[in-house]
């Protein structure tokens, strides 16, 4: 028994902005889905099933919104699944959709993730008080800042590395027409002069709050053969989870992240990720997570990730470009952020990333994480079909 190969033949996203007041939630998701269908040159009738994901329902105040969105996504009469795995959900949603094809349940699947943060208030959505449970600190930055400090202490990284990442990602975003933040006058000095929010994380080193949706059309080998544009082929995909809080947890480099990457590399036949992978779209909501994840994902030895960043390796024209799209630092519709990473990886190997295209990108990793650095989802896509 072997799995059916899975290909990405359509990608669509919205122009991500702080508030899409011109569309409802249904209008937003339909826009992304319509663009993905147009890219694949398919119609709603070609879709066998819909797999949708987003971050907590409290972010928009709609409980199980897939019920309301069934009509807008052409799902009436079809199977519709709703995935929720915290911040990693965009990636997990795509992987659940791939299983429908790999397991030969369906031939062509629409997968979509979204967040319309302007409908409500994410800070409020994360701060509902629960008796006898530790309160979430005000915003994710408060939770992650101590882990960044631990990384700096552990590795001796100079405190300039975070601003380099932010400066790079915001410049990359200028080349991506869908990115939320287009800061045309960005300079390294401006990043470094921005207010300190959660020491050592500055205002310009954090992600924005965005409205946006991202959709992909996934299909089997027969579907890929009909694709009008080059497909991206799935070479490996995995999810891993670990508990939120326990004595043995390494918050700087969680074991679940290492295990997830190792599983993807095993499936894809990657022996040396630094050599064998051409570019990476990783989930970096706070700039310091670039060097941290470079180590967690095996692109650098422990304690060495910041050196890759500092030496320019992760620049768009570097040897291992990271977050060519501008990343989560430039665009963060939370539930969609993971799928955008996956979609950008696919865009790169299809050669369709436009101004932020990495020349000759053949194998690209998409990465997402969520919760208290406890949920991980990743996929590796390639320009060629998998050989095994």
């Amino acid at each position, binding site marked *: *028994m072997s*799995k059916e190969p899975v290909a990405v033949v359509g990608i669509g996203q919205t122009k991500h902005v702080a508030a899409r007041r011109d569309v409802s*939630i249904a209008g937003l998701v339909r826009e992304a889905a319509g663009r993905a269908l147009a890219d694949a040159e398919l119609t709603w009738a070609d879709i066998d099933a819909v797999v949708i994901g987003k*971050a*907590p*329902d*409290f972010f*928009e105040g*709609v*409980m*199980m*919104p*897939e*019920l*309301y969105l*069934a*009509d807008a996504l052409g*799902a*009436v*009469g*079809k*199977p*519709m*699944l*709703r*995935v*929720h*795995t*915290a911040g990693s959900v965009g990636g997990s949603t795509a992987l*659940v959709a791939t*299983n*429908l094809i*790999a*397991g*030969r*349940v369906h031939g062509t699947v629409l997968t979509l993730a979204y967040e319309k943060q302007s*409908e409500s208030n994410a800070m409020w*959505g*994360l701060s*509902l008080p*629960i008796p*006898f*449970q530790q309160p979430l600190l005000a915003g994710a930055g408060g939770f992650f800042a101590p882990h960044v400090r631990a990384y700096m202490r552990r590795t001796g990284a100079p405190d300039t590395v975070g601003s380099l990442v932010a400066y790079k990602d915001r410049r990359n975003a200028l080349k991506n027409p869908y990115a939320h933040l287009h800061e045309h006058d960005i300079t390294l000095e401006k990043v470094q002069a921005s207010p300190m929010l959660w020491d050592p994380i500055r205002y310009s080193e954090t992600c924005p709050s965005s409205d946006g949706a991202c959709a992909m059309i996934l299909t089997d080998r027969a579907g890929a053969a009909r694709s009008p544009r080059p497909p991206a082929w799935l070479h490996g995909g995995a*999810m*891993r*989870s*670990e*508990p*939120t*809080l*326990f004595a*043995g947890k390494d918050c700087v480099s969680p*074991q*679940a992240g290492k*295990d*997830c990457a190792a*599983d993807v590399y095993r499936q894809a036949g990657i022996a040396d990720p630094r050599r064998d992978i051409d570019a990476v779209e990783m989930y970096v909501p706070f700039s310091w997570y670039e060097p941290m994840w470079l180590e967690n994902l095996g692109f650098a030895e422990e304690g060495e990730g910041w050196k890759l960043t500092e030496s320019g390796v992760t620049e768009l024209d570097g040897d291992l470009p990271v977050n060519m799209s501008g990343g989560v630092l430039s665009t963060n519709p939370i539930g969609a952020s993971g799928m955008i990473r996956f979609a950008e990886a696919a865009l790169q190997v299809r050669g369709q990333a436009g101004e932020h295209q990495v020349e000759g990108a053949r194998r690209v990793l998409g990465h997402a994480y969520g*919760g208290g650095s*406890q*949920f991980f989802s990743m996929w590796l896509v390639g320009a060629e079909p998998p050989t095994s």
Partner: protein
Amino acid sequence: MPPIRDIAVVAFAQSDHLRTTDELSEVEMLIPVLHAVLDQTGLKTSDIGFTCSGSTDYLAGRAFSFTMALDGVGAWPPISESHVEMDGAWALYEAWTKLLTGDADTALVYGYGKSSPGSVRDVLTRQLDPYYVAPLWPDSVALAALQAQALIDAGETDEPALAGVASRSRASAVTNSHAQLRGSVDQGGYLVRPLRVGDCPPVSDGAAAVILAAGERARELCERPAWIRGIDHRIEAHGLGVRDLTDSPSTRLAAERAGAFERPVDTAELHTPFTSQEVVLRKALRLGEEVRVNPSGGALAANPIMAAGLIRIGEAAARVHRGESDRALAHATSGPCLQQNLVAVLEGDPR
């Protein structure tokens, strides 16, 4: 096309379903159920290939509520795991597709919900179209009553027949030690006309868990595995005005795709929180009087939201395990007036 791999339900456990469990957190309610289902097979968390759960933040009243349940699972070393913001029946569907890919041979599936901390009728209004319908706060009983009245108007049922569904369900629940409402339950007055108190489900806190296994692994773990011969789910339009509430085309389609009509079933566990919904499903699923419907008592005897659908699959499977059924149908629903429906067909090996 038949599934490329044989997959079975090999174990099922559930909590006692109660009106209130103030003394327990969701995790505390769930942990004994997880232990019970693992104990049935002798498996440990670290032996499981894939874990998937179903729950909703809107019952817990907080974002990311499922993360706490994961801590209860004991996800260390890290596990391959996922979560659907749906009834656990759909978590089982996701796990089934994962096993079909061959990436895992066993899966742990669980669903849970505590309805007692809030008002379920109010909470479920938040499922509705947020711009046009939810602001009016039409509650779940009122919407079910619309469906019941449509059935009565169409001549499909009447109030005494609905009362008969209620009394039969609660009589069946007498042999189910986990059920909340058992034996003789007064139909009571109208809650929302034409639905009386007895036509409506109890408000329940509860949890359930299932273990799936593929091929020979299933035979090692269970004397008589409940093979999933087919499973499918379909959704309908959200707007009640564009649906025929007396019918359930999504259930019929899911049943066709699951192979339910290929041969008769002897048992059906239907997720019907309201008596009138059994009338709709019996027709859509072409169930005759000879089929035992809801021998567990069904959702009218206990309705822990986000677990009640998974329990239907578990109850059907358990009857196959015990040799009380050879071919059983299990159904789960989501959304107002049966908007989304899942059908699974379970079979034991021939005897």
